[in-house]
Structure formats: C-alpha cells, structure tokens
C-alpha cells in the first residue's frame, strides 16, 4: 500500500544507494515500507568511533524531498550532538534542509559529524560539557561506548 505511490525520486535514490553505496555506509529500504531505511554507518577512522558499526533508522516523510528525512541512531553512542534517544542535532535535518540534498548526502553528513563532534552546539548537555572540560576523557568514554555497544553488530 504505502509503496504503490512512491515518487520516482525515492525509487531512483534507492536504486543508486544500492548499486553504488557510499564508502562506510549502507542503507536499505524496509520491505514493507519503502520509505523506511535500515542504515549502518561505520565509525570513521581516527575518530573515537572507529571500529564501531552504528545502526540508524531513516524515514522519508510524505513531503520528501520538500521536507527532510527523519534519522535516528539506534545504537547507543557517546557524542555531544546525539542524545540518548539517538536524535541527531544537525542543521541540514532541520532548518537547513534543501530538496537538493539526498539520503546519501544526509548519511555522509552524519558520518562527518562522527569525525567532528561539535560540543558548541550540543544536543546532549552533559556529554558536551564533558567534551569541553576534558576532551581526552570524553573521547575515552566514546571509545568505551563504541566497544560496548557498537562492536560486533
């Protein structure tokens, strides 16, 4: 039902995501709802998340591409811009969304966010505070969490 009237743009994006996936990212649509994607992002090298496999969910709302996709981390992650519910603080998912962006670019942006946490625009106050007061320690915690929750997916 939900898939019968899928816009061509979504079909096209899906095909491209499957045929030429971005490095370190996999996204595949759910079988019963083509607007729902299971996403995996590898922790970028030289980041505290290296070696981790992070699961996310991504949903394309009815208005897509005029409205941003909804994305959420399913894997627990210690990151100042991601809260404990997995919600992500990223401008392009909110007011800076543009219909010229795609699922691929969104996921690449999230991957980049893992490489470059931004404690000045935090979603998780505590983690951000930790990050700013003692970055080395915060990075250790992030590594620990990666080991605990994001390994061996």
């Amino acid at each position: 039902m939900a898939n019968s009237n899928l816009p061509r743009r979504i079909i096209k994006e899906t095909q491209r995501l499957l045929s030429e996936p971005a490095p370190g990212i996999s996204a595949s649509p759910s079988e019963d709802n083509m607007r729902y994607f299971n996403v995996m992002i590898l922790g970028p090298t030289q980041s505290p998340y290296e070696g981790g496999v992070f699961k996310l969910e991504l949903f394309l709302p009815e208005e897509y591409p005029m409205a941003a996709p909804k994305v959420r981390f399913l894997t627990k992650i210690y990151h100042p811009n991601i809260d404990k519910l997995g919600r992500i603080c990223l401008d392009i998912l909110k007011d800076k969304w543009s219909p010229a962006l795609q699922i691929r670019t969104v996921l690449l942006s999230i991957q980049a966010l893992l490489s470059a946490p931004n404690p000045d625009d935090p979603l998780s106050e505590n983690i951000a505070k930790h990050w700013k007061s003692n970055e080395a320690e915060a990075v250790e915690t992030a590594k620990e969490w990666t080991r605990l929750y994001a390994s061996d997916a």
Partner: protein
Amino acid sequence: MGSKVSDHHLSTVRSIVGSEFSDMEIIRALHMAKNDVNAAINIILDTHTAPRFNPTRPNNQLSVSPPKPSPSTPIVTKPSFSEQRIDNNSDDWWLVNCGEMTGLSTCKGRSINSGETVIFKFPTKKLSSPFTGKGFGRAAACSEIVRFSTEQAGEIGRIPKEWARCLLPLVRDHKVRIEGNCKFAPQVLGIMDSIILSVSVFINSSMFAKHHQVSLKDAANSTDESVFHPLPTLFRLLGLNPFKEAELTPGDFYSNKRPLSEKVTLPRAKFEHPSQNGNENDNEESISEIEVENIVGVGSSEELEEMDPPANLQCNLRPYQKQALYWMIQMEKGKCMDETATTLHPCWEAYHLADKRELIIYLNAFSGEATIEFPSTLQMARGGILADAMGLGKTIMTISLLVAHSGKGESVGNQPIAKSFTEVGEVSDNVHTFSNIPKKATKFSGFDKPTKQMNSLTSGGNLIICPMTLLGQWKAEIETHVHLGSLSLYVHYGQSRPKDAKSLAHNDVVITTYGILASEFSSENADDNGGLFSIRWFRVVLDEAHTIKSSKSQVSVAAAALIADRRWCLTGTPIQNSLEDIYSLLRFLRIEPWGHWAWWNKLIQKPFEGGDERGLKLVQSILKPIMLRRTKHSTDREGKPILVLPPADMQVIYCEQTKAEKDFYGALFKRSKVKFDQFVEQGRVLHNYASILELLLRLRQCCDHPFLVMSRGDTQDFADLNKLAKRFLRGTYNALDGEVKEAPSRAYVQEVVEELRKGEQGECPICLEAFEDAVLTPCAHRLCRECLLASLRNATSGVCPVCRKAVNRQDLITAPTENRFQVDIEKNWVESCKVTALLNELQNLRSSGSKSIVFSQWTAFLDLLQIPFARNNISFVRLDGTLNLQQREKVIKQFSEDSTTLVLLMSLKAGGVGINLTAASNAFVMDPWWNPAVEEQAVMRIHRIGQTKKVAIKRFIVKGTVEERMEAVQARKQRMISGALTDQEVRSARIEELKMLFT
C-alpha cells in the same frame, strides 16, 4: 496488585501533603499503608508535622499574613510571621469584597473554632524542579496548593482549587491579599472535612499603576488564547457583580451555538449587489467598494463642520475637504474622547468595590486587565484613518492639516494642542484622568527597538511615508499648494540621506518611503545612528497605509515602532485582502487594545472567521469614531454629491481569437488541463497551488499574446544563448564593482554556459530526472522550473536549493534547450487579437489628441506592445518597476506635459497607487487581475480630482478563455479574500475555483 505504587496514588497523596515531601517519602508511606491513600497521608502527616511549620524553611513558602490593623479598622488579626514583606499602608489596599469559601481539612484530630483567624500560606514560585515530563507536571500541580493554618493548631487545611488558582498569581505579585477566619468547622477535624471560611480580599492600588505595561506585554507575547485571567475569576468567586456589564464577553465567543443563519451577511449583500445594479460595467468598482463599506461602514459625515484652510494654503478646498480638515483637527485635539468618554468600552465591565471609599474598578473581560481609569475605545489614539475613496484628494486634505497645525513633537510647553489635550483629558471625566499619552506610547510593548528613553529623542515635525512612486508627487503638491517658505520640506531618500536626527528633525515636513522606513528600522539595531526612529515626530502620516497591512512584515512592524504624537493613515482601501489588514492600521494608530494580536485575534479575527457577525460589529464600533470615509457617491447636507467628476465610462471589450491563436491556446489549455486533472485525481490540488497558478499564468499570458508563452515570460533577450552568457558574465563583472554582491564565480558561470551550449543533458538535483523546462538561478544553478518553484518558501522568493542563496522568482532565467520553440519577435511579429483591438482604439483616439494609459501586469507584454507602437508611429513612454525615482518623475512629467506623447505603457503593479495621471482620459486594462481592487486603483489614477474630461475605461477580455472564467471567479475571490469564509470553506472554495478556471 502487589506493592507497586501507582502514579495515581502518588499524586493524590502529594496533592494533600504538598510538595515538601519527596517522592520517596510518599512512596514509603504508601508501602507502609499498603497503598491505602488515607492511611498513607496520615502516616506522613503524623510523622512529619514538626518540620512543616518550621519557619526556617522559607525558601519554599512565602507567607502572606493578615495585614496590620490600620488604626481606623481594627481587624483582629495576629501576624504570626515576622517577615512582613508587604507595605500594609491601608491607603494602598482596597477591600474588594467579603465572601465565603469551603476549605478542606488536611489534618486529623486538630480543631479550629468559629471566629478563629486563619493564616494563608502561598507557595512561592514554581518549583524549579529537576524532573522533566510526568514528574514536572506533578510538582507544578502541588505548587498551586494554598494552605491555611491557625496560630494554635498549625496547618488545618487547604483552600479550594479554583480559589487557589486565581489568588496565587495575584498574591505572589502583591496585588491582592486575603484575610479570613473560620465560620464553621466540625468539632474535631478529619482528613477532607469541610471548613467554612469567611474571607475578605483586598486589592493593592499598585495593580492599577502598572497594569498597562505588564498585561499588554503578556498579551503581546502570549500566543495562548485561553489565558487564564485570575482577577475576574476572583471577583466572581467573591460574588462581586459588575454594575455595568461588558457588552462583549469571552463567553459570547466561546459558545459555538450560533445559528447558521447569523452567518455574516457580508457575502450575501455583496453577491446580491451586482444583480441589483443594472449597470454591468459599474460592477468592478462597486464590488470592492461595497465590500469595504460593509465592513467599515461609511461615516455619516454630512454633519461635520467645515473648517477654512489657513491662508498659507494656495488652493481652494471643497466643502467636504474642509469637513475633513475640521475632523482631523478635532481628532488630534482628542475631542472625540469627550464624546466616547461616557460610553464604556465594550470589552470592559465596571465594578463597585465593597470598600467604603467607593472605588470603581474596570475589568477587561478578555484580558483580565484591571484599571481605575475609565476605559474608552480611544484612550491612546490621536489621529485616525482618513479613508476617503480614491480621487477625493486625501493628499490635499492632509496638506491642509499640515499647514493648519504643525509643530514639533513633545515640546509640551509651547505646544498649544498638546496642552489643550491634557486639559481636555483632565476635565473630561471626573472618575479618572488620562495618563500622559506620550509616556504611554513608549510603553507600547511587543517591540523591543523603540525602547530608548524618551528624553533622548529629538523633537521632529511631520513625517510622511508613502510608496516610492508617490514621493515626487507629494513633494510637488506641497510645493504648489503651500505658500512658499511656510513649511520647510525635505525628501529623505537615497543612499546618501543623512542619518543625523537633528537635520531630519529640523524640517517641518519630511517625506520618505516605506522602503527607507523598513531599512532604517532593521539597521537601527546594529548601530544607533539616528534616522527616523531617533525622532519623536509631531505627526506621522502613512500614505497608502494599506502598504503595512501584513502585520508581520518588516515595514508594518517598523511603522508601528515610530514614535509620534499624532498618527494618520491615509488609504482608499482600508481593507484590501482581509479583515486582518485593519489590525495593522490599528496597531500603528495605537488604538488599544487592538494593537495586540492576541486580543484582536480573539475578539475580532476569530469570531469573524467563524462567521460570528459580532466580530464585524466590534470592528465597526472601533472604526466608527476614528475613521472618516466618504466615497464619490457621498452626499452633502443638501443631498448633493460631494464631488462631481466627469462621467466615467466602463466598458469591457471582448476579443475574438484568430484561428491560429485559438489553436495555440487550445493546445496549451489541453496540456494544462491534463496536469491539473492529475492533481485533482491525486487530491493534491492545494499542495500544488504554485504549479497550478503557474499553469494559469501561462494561459492568461497566452490570451495577451502567444509570444509571451513561447518566450516563457522571460524577456526575449535571454532566450539566445550568447546573450544569456553575456548577462551572466556581466553580472559577475558587476560583482567587482560591488553592485551584484552574490554572483557566482566567473569560471563556474562559464562552465555552466559551456555545458548548456554543448547541450549536455544533466539532471535536476531535486527530481533527479532530466531537466524539464530548466531555469537558471542568478547563482547559476540549473533546476526544473517546477521543482524549483515548489521548493521556494513562498510564491515569489526563497533560497536556491543548491547553494541557499536568495532567489527571486523574477530573476530566474529560462535555460535554452535544443528543441525550444524560439521566435524572433521583431521578424515574425504578428498581432494578437488583443493587440489589434488596442491598436484600433488608439487609432480612433489619435486625432482627438486624447491621452491613454495602457495597463498590463506583465512587463513582457509591454515589451511586445512596443513593436506595433513603433511601427504605427504611436509615441509612448513607459513606467514600470525598473525605473528609479528620477526616471519615474521624468516619465510622468513627459506624459503629462508633452502633447505628442499620447500613450503611457504602465505595469499594473508599479503604477497602481497614488500617481495622479489626470492628463489621460482613457485607460486600457489589457489583462484581468485576480483582485479587482488592484485594477480599480490603477484606473482611478485618471478618474479623480483634476480630471476635466469624460473618462473611458476599457478592459480587454478574450472570449472563451480562462480570462472569461476569471471574471466569474473574481466575484467569488472577493468573498474568499474578505475572510467571510472559514478555513475549510476557503480550501474547498479554492479547489472549486480552480476547477472553474479549467472548464
């Protein structure tokens, strides 16, 4: 069930024992009591009594004790807390009334005797609770519990919720205080026993001193429509009834039992009118004017006195203009306040307090605001709306006012009017005195910017704000009509305009544009360098005041933020699109409380939209005393029309398309209809409103001339690739001069142009398909036209989806494609049926030397018209939005004075307002516009004072096309625009309407 403590139990217990106890304590008690709530409460209260009355924990509780007995009124109270924080000077406290309430016991085994004084304890601020979610709600709920105790027994019980709810905020702010004693109670108290208390409530006079600022701010900031208003509720609980009730109360509007038949008579009247009016050609004007009249009413102005203009005015005023002068002078004096001072504002009710000193308090039934000043609709306004219909000479009436009475703002000492005004205020009513108006003006809240201290403002003269097109005219009219040297005049416009307040204030009259106003408002924040907002104006006049109609627009906010002693709105169309337009005017005029959206919305907008005619009635009653509106049909005392203009002949010329045109139109229509039907099928008509309007636009343009569609609305210049490249590169080049700031890099542009040249087929970044009808943004990004338009935030502008640079719709360039049908309009020139008809008309007029204006909404059509004009040796000038002020003035001058220039080509929007073009006696409206008011306004440029010849107005409609349908829709549209329909109705009406167009 187990021993799990439910949230429900927890909150029940908490509501009785209060917030001092932690969740853990309550849960423990519930466990011990095996979830029996009563038992748990007892456990808690029995084990914890002592600390709860320990005065060393004042951070949680603010104690409000009974007042010290004033010498004359020996009330037996014994203050039990040392921290007396309220000044109990009995002059400040007024007894509101005595009443009874039923308290609930929260103790067991204690006792209270009748007559025993009770002490009320109010919790302090909301607990800054660390919990979120559920927990917070609970904490907030118990922070509203008001307890009472006696000296002997300690805490006895709590007062009922509805009392607590209205007392709490008032007591917290020290606006109200309560004392009471026990009237009746059971011998020995048990939990939840009733205790009858008799209470006396006192109100502090500070409530009235500050209320304006406080409550207005609340109203302005609050978007919540069901704000709880403690004071009226308290009065009700105390059994205090108004001796004069508000005509309008919130209840009136909240009850939705209105019979449908009452639904606004407005649309019906409007619909009936055209049929009654035999003269079909007159309909255009009537519809909108009638509508305005329905909403705002036409003043019975015959009785107004006349006032002779001062000798400095070199112009004879007509009698009705003298009336206007008299009226305006009176309005500025505030005379009308006398008249309305005797009637209570419809939203306020009056109460006699029980206090012996016989104070009357006025309460606003909507806002809960309280005052002891008599509230009248006119409290703050000096000025009003001069809404005479177009062509009656609002400009000259205003000029006569400027001459008759001018001065500098706020120099009260040598300010005859300001002075007389305050005197009038003082004697006008013995109940109250008007507070200092100028001071209040600064308190006008909701705007942060004009919060400067009044004394830092320079006193200025008159400020006139008008659309750019009218600057020259205002200047010219003042110069011709005012005796040389009696008013100094300065046009505040252009890049190099001085910002220095002194030099601005030094002139008697400063004229500026809405654009300057808005830009100085926004830049003012950055550096406080003076400009229009650093002056306290003697008078501000908004010409074409409907310019500020959208209340959220920068210009509207800016206008409202101006500081002035007198405010005037000039507009022939006080309502252009919706009732909301009035709101902005009232806000600018400071007609309180209507300048606050929450109130306007609640009392007028919502009821009106909901079909409650009282919303409309209220607007009328607000407007009646502040607005003067006469139309050309108004009559004077003897019943003669106030203004005799030469007759205007309105005519519609129906054109018949040629075979070729018809075929082309037919094909285009079919294509559009297929698309439209798709939208209908998907039920996504309103989602695709922009694209549908675009489809209609093409069809309408095709009615003017098929070339317009072939060139896709963009000027023909750009269809050629090389020219396109040149334009882009020029744009980049200009960037070096700083003219075009945000141009793409030269290299990028070259690449894009090269790509286009090679005909490379890219894909649209939005639909990911091959481009369909590609357009280029000024930042050189290529997208499908429809994709881009759909992504724009509104119909005319937005940001580029690729780079987020600002994009205006008119800046888009159609990218050329291989298979595009291109025409060289010069070489292949063909006349469309409309062009032929127009040329015929102009040829007929040529010999008479009579001048004509040709209106179109599309400048591209004006471009096209220049070809046959040149070929037929018709000399013309052109006025459109691209001209700057000097160029405009030059064009108007040439058209008015040069006898060989017979035609003025004018874009409907650019030249719509204010310009006086009475040199012409013919107007040709080439294409129908959605809103007849815009058309009407344009046409009225020639049919106005100064016109000596018979006027002919001809509108062109192509038969059997979308234009004909539009005529029908225009009438419906009016109804929709006027807000007479509810949201749902508007939605379905819109769809209906669009369907009508595609039949």
